C-alpha cells in the first residue's frame, strides 16, 4: 500500500537525514518533496484482458535555497547513499544557478483543510477483483453483439512536503478508475468514472451505458457542419472547459500568456456560470496543500459570469502584494500556479430535459484531441467521439458521424441555456473535475469525418 511505501514516519526520518546531510555541507535551508504510488491496471480489448500491470514507485526530490538561488534534484534511491548523493547533487546545481531576486525563503508550517481520501479496501484491491469486474463488463457488451475495450485501475499514492522552516505536510489517497468503449460494426459508445473508493464505481452500469450508446448510434448519418444547439454530457464539458484553467494564474497573466489579461473583473461568461476551486469539495480529490506546502484556499474564479479570483503562488503573491492562495507548483518552475480542483456550479435541469427542450441539436458524449487554436480568444479545436447523436423534435433520433469543432470557450460559456446537477466527471483531456452537463446554443462544428 502506498502508505506502507512511504508513511509519514518514513518521510520524517528521511527528511531528517536530508537536513543533516545538507547542514553538514553548510546549507541550512532545504525542502524535500516525497511522492509515491502503488498502482495496478487491468486493460482489456477485443473482449479479453490483454495488458495487466502493476507499478510501485517512490521519489525523493530535494531543493536547497542558497543565497537567493534554488534548484531541484530527484532520485528514487532512498538508501543512505542515494539520499547523500541527491543532497550533494541538489547543492551543486543550486550553487551553479543564477540568483533569483524574487525567490522567497522556505514556507513555514501551516494547517491545511482536512480531507479523507484513502480507503484501505481500494489500496488492497486485487488483480482477481479487477479481472472479475472486467469479465462482467465484457459480458454485458458481448450480449449486445459488440466488442469491449477499457481499463480498470486501482491503487494509491502519497505526496508530502517537509522543509527546514517547519512545514511538514503529508497526504495520501486512493483512486479507482473504470472506463469502457463498446464498439459495434459502425458505431461506438463510451463511459468512464473515477472515485477514491472503488466501491463507489459501478463497472457493469458503465458497460451497459456504453453498449447502449453504441447500439443507438449504429448506421450513423452525416449531419452537415454548422452551428448547432448541443447537449454536452459532463465528460464533454470537463474535457473542453477544463482547458482554460491554467490561465487563472497570476503568473500566466504577468507573462501575457493568459486570456484573462485585461479581463479580470469583467463579465466574459453568461450569468449562469459560477466556477470555484475547492479542494475540500466531497467529490474532489488531491492534496489540500500546494507544491510549497501552502494550504489550498477556496477560490471563486467566476461569479455569475464575472472573473473574480485567480490563483497565486507565494512568489506571485509577493509580487502582487496579496496573500498566496495555495495553488503553486513545486519550485523551481516557469508556470507558477493554477487551480486544479474545479467545481462548476450546476442548475436544475437534466440531460433528458435538455434533450426534450431541443428541436434540433447534437448530443455529445465526449470530445477528443482538443488543442488550442487561439490563446486569447480561447478557441479550441477537437473531435466528437464514441456517442454523437442527432436530436430532433426533443428526442435522440440517431447517431451521426463525428464532427470537428472550432469553438471559443468565452462564446460557449456565454451561450449556456441549461445546466444539470454537477457530478465528478472523468475524461481523457483534463484532470477530473466536478461539472454539470450543459445545453449550449450555437456550437461551431466545422467539418465531419468519415465515421
Amino acid at each position, binding site marked *: 500500500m502506498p502508505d506502507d511505501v512511504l508513511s509519514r514516519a518514513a518521510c520524517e526520518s528521511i527528511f531528517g537525514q536530508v537536513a543533516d546531510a545538507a547542514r553538514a555541507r553548510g546549507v541550512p535551508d532545504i525542502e524535500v518533496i516525497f511522492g509515491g504510488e502503488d498502482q495496478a491496471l487491468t486493460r482489456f480489448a477485443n473482449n479479453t484482458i490483454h495488458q495487466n500491470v502493476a507499478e510501485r514507485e517512490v521519489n525523493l526530490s530535494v531543493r536547497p535555497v542558497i543565497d537567493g538561488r534554488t534548484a531541484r534534484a530527484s532520485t528514487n534511491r532512498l538508501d543512505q547513499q542515494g539520499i547523500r548523493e541527491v543532497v550533494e547533487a541538489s547543492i551543486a546545481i543550486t550553487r551553479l544557478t543564477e540568483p533569483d531576486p524574487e525567490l522567497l525563503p522556505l514556507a513555514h508550517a501551516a494547517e491545511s483543510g482536512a480531507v479523507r481520501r484513502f480507503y484501505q479496501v481500494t489500496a488492497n484491491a486485487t*488483480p482477481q477483483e479487477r479481472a472479475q469486474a472486467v469479465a462482467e463488463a465484457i459480458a454485458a457488451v458481448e450480449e449486445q453483439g459488440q466488442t469491449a475495450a477499457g481499463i480498470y485501475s486501482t491503487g494509491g499514492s502519497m505526496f508530502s512536503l517537509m522543509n527546514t522552516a517547519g512545514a511538514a505536510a503529508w497526504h495520501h489517497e486512493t483512486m479507482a478508475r473504470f472506463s469502457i468503449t463498446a464498439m459495434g460494426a459502425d458505431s461506438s459508445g463510451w463511459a468512464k468514472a473515477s472515485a477514491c473508493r472503488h466501491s463507489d464505481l459501478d463497472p457493469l452500469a458503465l458497460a451497459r451505458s456504453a453498449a447502449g450508446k453504441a447500439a443507438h448510434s449504429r448506421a450513423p448519418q452525416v449531419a452537415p457542419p454548422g452551428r448547432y444547439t448541443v447537449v454536452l454530457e459532463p465528460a464533454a464539458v470537463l474535457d473542453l472547459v477544463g482547458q482554460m484553467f491554467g490561465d487563472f494564474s497570476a503568473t500566466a497573466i504577468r507573462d501575457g500568456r493568459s486570456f484573462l489579461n485585461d479581463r479580470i473583473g469583467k463579465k466574459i461568461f453568461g450569468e449562469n456560470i459560477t466556477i470555484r476551486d475547492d479542494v475540500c469539495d466531497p467529490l474532489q480529490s488531491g492534496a489540500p496543500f500546494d507544491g510549497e506546502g501552502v494550504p489550498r484556499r477556496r477560490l471563486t474564479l467566476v461569479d455569475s459570469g464575472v472573473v473574480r479570483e485567480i490563483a497565486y503562488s507565494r512568489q506571485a503573491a509577493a509580487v502582487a502584494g496579496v496573500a498566496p492562495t495555495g495553488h503553486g507548483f513545486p519550485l523551481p518552475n516557469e508556470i507558477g500556479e493554477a487551480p486544479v480542483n474545479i467545481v462548476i456550479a450546476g442548475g436544475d435541469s437534466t440531460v433528458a430535459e435538455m434533450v426534450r427542450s431541443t428541436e434540433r441539436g447534437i448530443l455529445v458524449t465526449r470530445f477528443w484531441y482538443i488543442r488550442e487554436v487561439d490563446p486569447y480568444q480561447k478557441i479550441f479545436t477537437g473531435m466528437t467521439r464514441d456517442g454523437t447523436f442527432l436530436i430532433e423534435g426533443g428526442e435522440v433520433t440517431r447517431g451521426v458521424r463525428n464532427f470537428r469543432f472550432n469553438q471559443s470557450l468565452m462564446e460557449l460559456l456565454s451561450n449556456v441555456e441549461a445546466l444539470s446537477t454537477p457530478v465528478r466527471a472523468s475524461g481523457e483531456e483534463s484532470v477530473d473535475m466536478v461539472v454539470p452537463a450543459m445545453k449550449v446554443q450555437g456550437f461551431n462544428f466545422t467539418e465531419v469525418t468519415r465515421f
Partner: protein
Amino acid sequence: MKDTALQALDMVARRGVTYADVRAIEIRDREISTKNGKAGHVSSSESMGVGIRVLAFGCWGFAATDDLTKEGLEAAAVLALEIARAGTAAHKSDVVLMPEDKHEASWVSEFRIDPFTIPIDRQLAVLLAVDAELRHQPGISLAEASMQFERRRQVFASTLGSVIDQTRYTAGAGFSALSYKEGEIQRRSYPNSFGGQYQLKGYELVEELKLVEHAARIAEEAVALHAVDQCPEGEFDLILDSSQLGLQIHESIGHPIELDRVLGTEANYAGMSFLTLDQLGRLRYGSDIVNVVCDARVQHGPGLGTFAFDDEGVTAQSTDIIRNGQFVGYMTSRETAAQVGQSRSNGCMRADGWGRLPLIRMTNVSLEPGEQSLDEVYDADHAIAMQTNRSWSIDDKRYNFQFGCEIGWEIRNGKRVRMLKNPSYSGITTEFWNQCAAIAGPEHWTLWGVPNCGKGQPEQVMGTGHGASPARFRKIKIGSAYAG
C-alpha cells in the same frame, strides 16, 4: 544492472512461464530553462527500476518495482505471475509470439560531447544569452529557452537467452518568444515549437542549433505578426516546412500504421486506425512521389526512434510503409506479427521506462526526400506557406486532421509576398497525401524529434523521429480554424 536483470528473470523463469523478459533501467536527466532573464527550471533526476513481463497461463502479466533488493524483486516476480493468472478470468485465446533470435550485445549511441560533463552555469549562460536577444526586441512579453538531456541505460534479458545492454543519449533545445498586444497573443519558436529540436545526440546538438544567432529574427517575427493580415480561408496550394511536415507524418501516417491500433487494443484511449488489414498493399495512400519508411537503424540518422534493439529484444530494422504512394507496411511486435501472419516482428516495441509495458511505438517514421529544389517546391502561382506547429488535432481513426502554424506566407509566382498570421489547414489523411506535388531534396531533409507522443493506459510518453523535407500540396482547405 545485468546481475539485477538476470536475478529477476531467474525468479520468474523458475516459477514456470511460457516466456519472460526483464528490463533493468537506469535513467539520468537534466533540465534547464530560462524565462525573462532568470533561471526558470534547473533540475536533475535519476531513476532506477525493473520491469518484469511474463507470459503464463496464456496471458501477459507485468509488474515493476524500484525496490531492487532480493525481496523487492521477488515480490514483483510473484505479482507479475499473479496478474497473468488473473487475466484468465477474461481470456479468449493464448498469446502467441513470433520467433526471435537470441541476442547478446552491448551498444551505446553515438555522441560527441557528454552533456553531463558541461557545467550547468555554462549551459545556463547560453540560454540567458538567447533570452537577452529575444527581449532586446520591444513588444516581447515572454522569452523562454530550454535544454534537456537524458542518459538511459537498459539491460534487457529474456528467457530466449538474450542479454542486451543499451545506452542512449538524447538531447533537446530551443526557445520561444511570446508577444501580447491589444487582445492578441502571438508566439514564434526556434527551431521548432514545444521545446525545439530533439535528437539522439549529446551536447553537440545545442551547438549545432546556433540558438543565439536565430533569436533576433524570431523575436522580430513574433511582434510583426500582430500587424499582418489574417490567413485567408479557402482552397490553396500549401507549402509546409519540414518541422510541420514531420508532425503531419507523425499524426497521419505514424499513428495509423501501429498494428495494435489496427487490431483494436488501443481502442479505449488512443483509438483505432482507418488502415484496416484489407488495405495493406491495396490502398493508394499518397501520390507517386510519397515514400515513407519506419527506420530505427543508426544509418537513418540520430532520431529519437533510433536504437539497436527494441524493448522485446528485436533488432532495429527499416520497414517500407508507403512505396510510390502505395500502402505496404505496418509497425509490429512479436505478438501482432503473429496475429497477421507475418514471420517476424519489425521491432517497434518500446516502453517509456521501467514502470511500463512495451507497446508498438513509432521509431523514426520519415518521408524520403524528393528530387525537387526548394525553388521548385515554392514554384506555385498562388500558395500559402506555413512554418512551425501551433496546434494539432486528428480524429481517433486518423482520417480528419487540422493543424495550425505560428506563421504563414502568401506565395505568388514562387515568391513570398506577405506574412500572414494564424494560418491553419485541414483535410482527410489520404486525400491530403495524394495531393503531394513536390518534395525537396536530401539537402533540405531534417530528422525532427517529437518528444511527447502519448499512448497507452497507463499513458506512456515516447520520443519519436520524423525526417522530412519541405513539400507542396495541391488544393488544400486552409483557414477553417477561424471559420464560422
